[in-house]
């Protein structure tokens, strides 16, 4: 019964997480990812046996026998979950920072429609200038601007390390 409840719960968490990710808006994205990572951790938890009040500890005098198998839950999945929680926590924190950064840079938590103009033309050999106007948001080369202006053309900026 516990196992079935756990399985249903994992499924519900997966479904909610997937739904949240598909919604617009970055906070929902983070919450959805959180739900999905929780679902996976819970699924991992279920791979050990689900028992109550039976710690996986064998008394010092007693021998481990085959008959003991199944009496208590396997502790290994919990060690795996611990690793997985740390990793997914780190990644989620990183995503939150990225989203905060984007918010600070663009003043919006929605992604600009980068590909919209690219899809508009059907002829790959068409000259770009007449067909396509790339919006500022789609400029890939702000990275180069950054380099060229602030560092390369300004020799003393290179030496100033701190």
């Amino acid at each position, binding site marked *: 019964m516990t196992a079935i409840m756990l399985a249903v719960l994992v499924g519900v968490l997966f479904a909610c997480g997937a739904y949240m990710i598909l919604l617009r808006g970055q906070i929902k994205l983070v919450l959805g990812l959180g739900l999905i990572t929780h679902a996976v951790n819970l699924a991992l938890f279920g791979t050990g046996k689900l028992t109550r009040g039976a710690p996986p500890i064998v008394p010092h005098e007693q021998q481990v026998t085959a008959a003991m198998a199944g009496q208590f839950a396997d502790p290994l999945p919990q060690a795996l979950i611990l690793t997985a929680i740390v990793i997914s926590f780190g990644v989620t924190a990183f995503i939150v920072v990225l989203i905060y950064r984007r918010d600070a840079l663009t003043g919006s938590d929605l992604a600009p429609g980068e590909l919209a103009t690219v899809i508009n033309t059907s002829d*790959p050999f068409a000259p770009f200038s007449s067909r396509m106007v790339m919006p500022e948001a789609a400029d890939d080369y702000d990275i180069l601007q950054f380099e060229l202006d602030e560092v390369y053309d300004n020799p003393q900026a290179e030496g100033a390390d701190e």
Partner: protein
Amino acid sequence: MNVHPTILAMPVAIPLLFGALSLLMQGIRTPHRVRVQQILAGIAIGANLILALLLLSYTLSGGRMSFQMGLWPAPFGITVYIDGLSAIMLTTVGLLSALIFPFAVATMDAERARLGFYPMALFLLMGANGAFITGDLFNLYVFYEVLLMSSFVLLTLGGTPSQINGGIRYVVLNLMGSMMLLLAAGITYGTLGTLNMAHIAVRMGATPYLVQAVIAGLLLIAFGAKAAAFPVFFWLPSSYHTPHPAVTALFSGVLTKVGMYSLFRTFPLFFPWLLDEWQPLILTIAGLTMVIGVLGAFAQPTIRRLLSFHIISQIGYMFMGLGVAMAPTPYGVGFGLALAILFLVHNQIVKTALLLGGGAVELETGTGKLNELGGVVALRPFQAALFFLAAFSLAGFPPTSGFIGKLGLLEVTFSSGSWVIAAVSVFVSLLTTMSMIRLWQYVFWGKPHSKYRMPKKLATQGASMAMTVPVLILVVLSIAIGVMAQPALDAVQVAASQVIDRVGYVETVGPELTASDLQIPFGNYPADAVAAGR
């Protein structure tokens, strides 16, 4: 040659040690910090390459090695295992990082170098090396995360708006892929009771087909997402064009290829029979990946966007190789896998050459937009010639490695009867050529624009050498593989025969693993037909 198995800890330990040291340098406020980090990275990358070559020479002479961390016996401890495939991947990645390193030193802006490019590159190397040598499914997941975490930082280093945008997509979609891998590891442990790859291989044959299918499907999705295969490739084209060109080159040589390596490792080891049964599925993925990748490349307006769609397209060829990996051919079982490995190595070399060449053009002219470029052949004739050779190697013209790889894969697919995918791959090669000609036309032909700005830092002789010589070495390597194909084919055939030798894998990792599972039929596929347990 005799090597002690503890050497297997070194591919992980060296980058970790030097990465940690240079990360410590981040906290020291000295003007020479970046220089020290560069020296540390140089030592680590050099040592890693030497070590990889040593392991390559050991494994290609037929040797295999495994080591149990902490000397815990096989299914309990963490196993490290090396054979021809791992050693080939270690060597290629070591070589690529050694070639990208001078490019990065010469072109990386002071800001990004100060923010910690070098430590992160070393951690990336550590994650990749760890994924190549591990013999434990959960450990594979952990090394994937090491690889991904450092790639997240490298991708967003500098924090420009386009990098952040691409970074969010990249992180989210890769996290989903990692969750699938973790779920696969969890289900494997829940049903088979082990995470050691050799032990999984022993026990897999006796599990119900449904369980096998779930695990195989999850692994296919997870590794397919890392490798950027058809339905799950979207993270790649939306992020690869944003970071510094050296970072893009490093990613193209390492990240997607680790996904392919994991597929080549796990499928023939865990469930080789599924490679036959699921061949239509895998070949469909392969065909769609190829076609969509190359068609996407036609719509792209910048050099690196175009090249990143070609990465996807080429991944399709490797999936084709995976699909025919166990197919019977006149040259024996496993010849398909051998050619897939050869194609993987070829692609790592050529793609990195193209991205370094294209990145050099972007850095030297200040733009990568095709409509703003032109006439680079007049400015940089030698670099243009190298780019031309690399592009034709990608398309598969003789006498380059692309010709050998594609010809071999075609031969295998035809002789195993999957002629539809063979026809698709030929058609895609044609489209690749067209796409490369289009790139060439826009970037290299024509008159030079007057508004190119050559950054002062790149105007020196040394910087120009650092941007050209790595590409030259890679192109020479590609042509060498094409001209002297026999040694390369011999090497990958040794590697492939080691990969499909499941019994040998288990014997190397721990002979006691089969003894403890007496009831389970286990053997090489298809020679000893494991079908009994299914």
